[in-house]
């Protein structure tokens, strides 16, 4: 197994106590336990505080546009399925501007690990409501309380046919790291939604608040993540938030379905102009 610190490039400058530190740590642990080389890992990020990650993490990185992590990561994975491709988004990136891309990458079951760091606020723009902000929450732009009902990423994923749906908490790094690692090993699309406090702009959903409001699905001895009805129950709990591996199933990944040969990445093809089929194609137009 690799050492965690081989993935650390620099020291992050997120606000002291930000949940992203826990996510950063968990990502490094997961990469180390998979024994990855930094060149075999690509981290695709969106726009938000999480997007600074590429400056701190030693791996190939792609810090793209707001909400567009999914198509970029899918393009990379399909061109080189031998790479471990992890996309990281915030709640705005994944569940607002990029919601369409999220559901389509998920339903195609593309072999990506999608880490969504949900702090229930737009922090980089200094505190507007996000799609996961609590109803009634007072934020910079909702002085009279948010009038939007929040959405839940894992529940959406379950409805849309997700094959690996987990939720972690950035206050429980070892638990989170194990979920990310398992997601990276999953053959297909893995969602790891993360409850992650913003210590600067969200005073409501703090570490203490989350500790009081989460429960681990694995604490029920008979919980079976392959039972969809149980997964719905866990995600629909009115008072408490389920964390752990909520749901898992086997389905062929998109790359196995569409690539002629997953062992022969497009990235390393020799582009020859003398392919015999080219001459045959020309014949069709005669």
């Amino acid at each position, binding site marked *: 197994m690799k050492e965690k610190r081989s993935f650390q490039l620099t020291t992050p400058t997120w606000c002291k106590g930000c949940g992203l530190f826990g996510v950063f740590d968990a990502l490094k642990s997961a990469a180390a336990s998979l024994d990855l*080389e*930094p*060149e*075999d890992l*690509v981290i*695709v990020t969106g726009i938000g505080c999480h997007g*600074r990650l*590429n*400056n701190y993490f*030693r*791996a*190939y*990185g*792609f*810090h*793209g*546009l707001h909400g*567009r992590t*999914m*198509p*970029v*990561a*899918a*393009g*990379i994975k*399909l*061109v*080189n399925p*031998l*790479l471990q491709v992890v996309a990281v988004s915030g709640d705005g990136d994944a569940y607002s501007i990029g919601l*369409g*891309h999220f559901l*389509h990458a998920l339903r195609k079951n593309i072999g990506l690990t999608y880490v969504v760091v949900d702090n229930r606020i737009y922090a980089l723009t200094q505190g507007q409501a996000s799609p996961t902000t609590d109803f009634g929450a007072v934020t910079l732009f909702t002085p009279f309380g948010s009038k939007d009902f929040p959405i839940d990423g894992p529940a959406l994923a379950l409805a849309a046919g997700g094959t690996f749906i987990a939720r972690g908490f950035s206050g429980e790094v070892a638990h989170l790291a194990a979920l990310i690692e398992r997601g990276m090993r999953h053959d297909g699309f893995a969602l790891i939604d993360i409850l992650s406090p913003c210590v600067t702009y969200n005073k409501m959903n703090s570490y203490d608040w989350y500790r009081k409001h989460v429960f681990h699905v694995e604490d029920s001895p008979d919980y079976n993540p392959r039972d969809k009805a149980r997964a719905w129950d866990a995600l629909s709990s009115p008072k408490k938030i389920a964390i752990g591996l909520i749901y898992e199933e086997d389905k062929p990944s998109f790359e196995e379905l*569409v*690539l*002629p*040969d997953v062992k*022969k*990445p*497009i*990235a*390393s*093809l020799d*582009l020859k*102009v*003398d*392919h015999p*089929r*080219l*001459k045959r*194609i*020309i014949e069709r*137009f*005669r």
Partner: protein
Amino acid sequence: MMIKDLSVMIAGKAGDGVLFTGNVLAKILKRQGWEVATYRDFPSNIRGEGTCYTVRASLDKIYGLADRVDILLAFDCEAILAHLPEIAENGIVFCDGEGVAALPPEKTRGKTFHRFLLRSLAREQFGQEIFKNMIALGALSYVLDLDRALLERIISEMFLKKKGKDMVRTNIRAASFGYEKAREMTAETERHPLARKGDDDRILISGDEAIGFGALVAGCRYFAAYPICPATEVWQALVHDMPEFNGVIVQTEDELAALNMAIGAAFAGARAMTSTSGPGASLMMEAFSLAGMMEIPVVIAHVQRMGPATGMPTKSQQGDVLQWIFGSHGEFPRIVLTPGTVGECFDLTVKAFNLAEKYQCPVILLTELDLGQNYRTSRAFDLSAVQIDRGKLLRPEELLDVADFKRYELSADGISPRSLPSYKNGVHVAESLEHDERGYRDEDPANRLRMMGKRMHKLDRASADLTPPRLWGCQKADVGFIAFGSTLGAVLEAMDQLREKKVPSRFLQLRALWPFPAAAVREFLAESRDVFVVEHNYEGQLASLIKSQISPCGELKKIVSSSTRAFTPRDIVEPVLEAAR
């Protein structure tokens, strides 16, 4: 009398098989050795509205429509009323309908009309109405004195594999029946016999198909797109063959995803492409800027249609020129190529992939529906001339001893070495924020100036690599035309007609609009007295571009059109003669 140029229009309602009939006729005429150009005019609807398909054949090289139609084969009488003004003085009309008799005599003078009840004949003779198209093709073969064996061979090629021997036999019988019917129906003087020529090493292909094929040849192995008219034919041209080349085609959820996905694929090492039109191009503007900032080589084929908004999705226009040259947020280098023939669609597609990797920037293949969806004859594309240039893309072994890889190194030409994920010692970040030489976010003001300069200067020396404008016509003439894309055919034939009227002219066909070919245009302007800029849009976007790039530039006369119809020579000859008066 043998003729040298002929246009046949097939007209009816969407669902009548107009497209099928036109395509087969085009193929026969091509095999007969003639130069062929087709023109589809169809609604944005699958069934029930008026549609027509013109097939033009000529002994001379042609690139588009003629001013008139010689023979109209109509599946209903409404089609005749719609197209009567286009029919030549001595034109012939076949119509499946009773309404011919009711046509006003002043409008039908000189023309010959035949009631040709295709549907009922098909039902009576062959049990199904669908055979009306083959009867029609048989009849046209008689009128044009085409090789009957050729039609039979084409029928066999089309139906044998998919539908079997019986279907081939029935179709051949239907064609023979049509042939004999036309012989009974028409006078010998109505025949338009075509001289037979050889058909050596030629193809009949649409611009979209030529782009799709060009992409395969160029090594495009990743294609991501969202369906949109009139660009889907590019995709269609690739869909069956891509797996054989170990490549992949992905239908994305929208055009935002399509371009972002192509960019991700290119970052990972594929030659990647997307195709789109109108509203899809607008959605791609965001990621266009991303490719510019990250210096990602990606090719975007934009087949223009009529806007704004949803506009007229099945009509051609050149209204999105400035969008790609000046569009999206921020400033970044981009290359815009504009093919005017199907051969150039192929050549410039291959070139687009090389330029994208050499200059590490997005390249736009800008064409329009008229060239994209219609068929033209061309010499078979020469694959032996194709070269693949991947620019400063490193091989993994070139990185073995590299300790501090700089993806965005400040090199003399502004173009930096590129490594791919999985390459050891090549780890870097593709960063949409302003970044340093290693790709890490950097807001230092001095770094910003260096990086902006690096990116913007990349194309300083690119003009030598771009396809230069092509000069057509006389060496010296007072009248000059400047145009790009599918107006080419109309301009060239307008020049012929003007020459007959003792007005010599020359024509500068632009095949790359950006970086702007300023030197060639400046020289052309200096040597012409009256310059007409011909373009299929309302405002004259090319004329505005020329004025913005060349100063002083003198007067430019605009020949513009927002008509749903493609340009014909008359649209150009008349304003030139008008200006001379």
